[in-house]
C-alpha cells in the first residue's frame, strides 16, 4: 500500500513536471543598439525562439541574423554582408570557419540564482552560459528579470558585447560611427511547450 502511494505521488509529480517543465516561444524580441552621436544603429528581430526548462533551470535562445530589421535597408544589407557574414555560404569561408553556423546567434545556459517557479513574483536572476555570435562562442553572465507563472513566464535581459570579441571586424573608416560596446536587449513571453 505504502509503495503504491509513493509510486502514485512520483507518477503524479512526473506527469506534472512533464506537462509543465518546459516553456517556449518563437516570437521573442531581441534588439540591439550600437548608436553613436554620428549614426543611429538600431535593429530588432521579433522572431527569436527560446525555451526554458524550469526543472533544471536551463535556458536556450536562437535567432536568425537575417530576421533583424533596420530602418535603413542599406544598413541591413551591410550588417548581413560585411559584419555578420550571415549570408556567406559555408563553402566560401576559411577552413577554420567552415563548420560554424554564421546564420544564427545562440545562447545556451543556466539560471544560477535560486528561483521559486510557483511564486509569480518578479525576480532578478543571474544567468550564465555560452553566447555564440558570428561563429564565436564566449562564456557570459547576465542579469535577467524573470516573472514566473503557471501558464506564462515573462523574461527580460540585457547584455553588452564587444564586436571584436566575436571576430566581427570594423574597418577604421567607420570606427567612429559604431559604438565600441553593443547593447543587446531581450524580451520573451513563454507559454507551456506543446509537442
Amino acid at each position, binding site marked *: 500500500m505504502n509503495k503504491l502511494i509513493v509510486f502514485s505521488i512520483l507518477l503524479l509529480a512526473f506527469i506534472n513536471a512533464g506537462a509543465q517543465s518546459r516553456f517556449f516561444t518563437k516570437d521573442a524580441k531581441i534588439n540591439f543598439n550600437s548608436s553613436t552621436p554620428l549614426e543611429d544603429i538600431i535593429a530588432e528581430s521579433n522572431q527569436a525562439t*527560446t525555451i526554458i526548462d524550469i526543472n*533544471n533551470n536551463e535556458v536556450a535562445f536562437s535567432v536568425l541574423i537575417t530576421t533583424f530589421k533596420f530602418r535603413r*535597408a*542599406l544598413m541591413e544589407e551591410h550588417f548581413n554582408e560585411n559584419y555578420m557574414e550571415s549570408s556567406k555560404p559555408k563553402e566560401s569561408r576559411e577552413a577554420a570557419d567552415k563548420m560554424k553556423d554564421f546564420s544564427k546567434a545562440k545562447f545556451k545556459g543556466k539560471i544560477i540564482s535560486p528561483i521559486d517557479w510557483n511564486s509569480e513574483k518578479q525576480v532578478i536572476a543571474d544567468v550564465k552560459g555560452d553566447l555564440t555570435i558570428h561563429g564565436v562562442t564566449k562564456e557570459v553572465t547576465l542579469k535577467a528579470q524573470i516573472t514566473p507563472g503557471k501558464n506564462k513566464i515573462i523574461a527580460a535581459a540585457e547584455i553588452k558585447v564587444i564586436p571584436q570579441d566575436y571576430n566581427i571586424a570594423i574597418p577604421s*573608416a*567607420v570606427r567612429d560611427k559604431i559604438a565600441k560596446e553593443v547593447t543587446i536587449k531581450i524580451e520573451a513571453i513563454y507559454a507551456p511547450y506543446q509537442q
Partner: protein
Amino acid sequence: MSQDLDALLDKAVKPQTTYATATFKSTRIVNGHSIERMKKKQLEFRISHRFDPINSGSYNFYGLDYGRIHLALEYGLTDWFEFGIGRSSYDKTYDAFGKFSILRQSKGVKNMPFHLTYLISTEVISMKYYPEIFPDFNSRMSYIQQILIARKFNESLSIQLTPTYIHRNLAPSAIDKRDLFALGFGSRYKLSKRIALNFEYYYVNRPISNSEITKYYNPLSFGIDIETGGHVFQIMVTNAIAMREGGFIGKTMDSWNGAGIRLGFNIARVFSFAKQ
C-alpha cells in the same frame, strides 16, 4: 538535457528561403542598370559625371576640365518596385523610369537560380538645336525596355545579361533605324568586402552600316565600386559620354581605339524614410 533544448529550438524554426542579396553593390553596374533597386521607402540621390577624353592632354587636365553631369532621384515604393527621375546635361535630357523585380534568386524552400527584373524608361531631349531638327515634342522622346537577368554565382562573382529594346520617335539621322536592339553583358567581381571590379558591354545591333559622318560604337566600360557606409562611389573608364540608355547605347560616338576613353564617376547616397 541541454542538447535536447537545442534540438527543440531547431525543430521549432521552419525551413527558410534565403534570397541572394547584394548581387551588385549599386543600382547601376557602370552606365546601365543592375537588378538592384531601392527597398521600400529608401531614396537614392545619384550624381554622375563623365569627363572629356583622357587623351585631351594636360592643358585640359586629362579631360577633367569638362564634364557631363546627370542628377537623379530614385525611390523604392515597395520592395519590388522602384521609380526614378533624372536630368542630364547631355542633350539636356529629362528621364523617368520604373523598375520591377519579378523574380529573385533564392535557395531553400523556394529555389530560383537567377534574378529577373523589368525596366521601362523614357527620355526627352530638351536641347534647342539651330536649325531645329525636331519637328515637334513627340520626336524628342524615346522609350527603353530592358529585361535584366542576373545570377550571383558566389560571394565574389555576379553576372548579368540585359536584352534591350530602344524605340526613338525620331532617329538621329536619316539612315539610322528608329528601333534598336542591344544585348548587355555585365559583371561584378568583389576584390574585398567593400571594393568590387565591374565590367559592362552592350552589343548594339545596327543592321545598316554607319555613315561616315556619324559612326556609332558599342559602349565598353570598366569600373570600381567603393562602398563607405551610406555611400557607394563608382569610378569608371568608358567610351560613353551619356549616362542613360538612349544615349550610351544608342549614340556613343567615341571608341576605345579612337582615343575616346573617359574617366567618370557615380556617387549614390541613400536616405531612409522608413519608421523605426
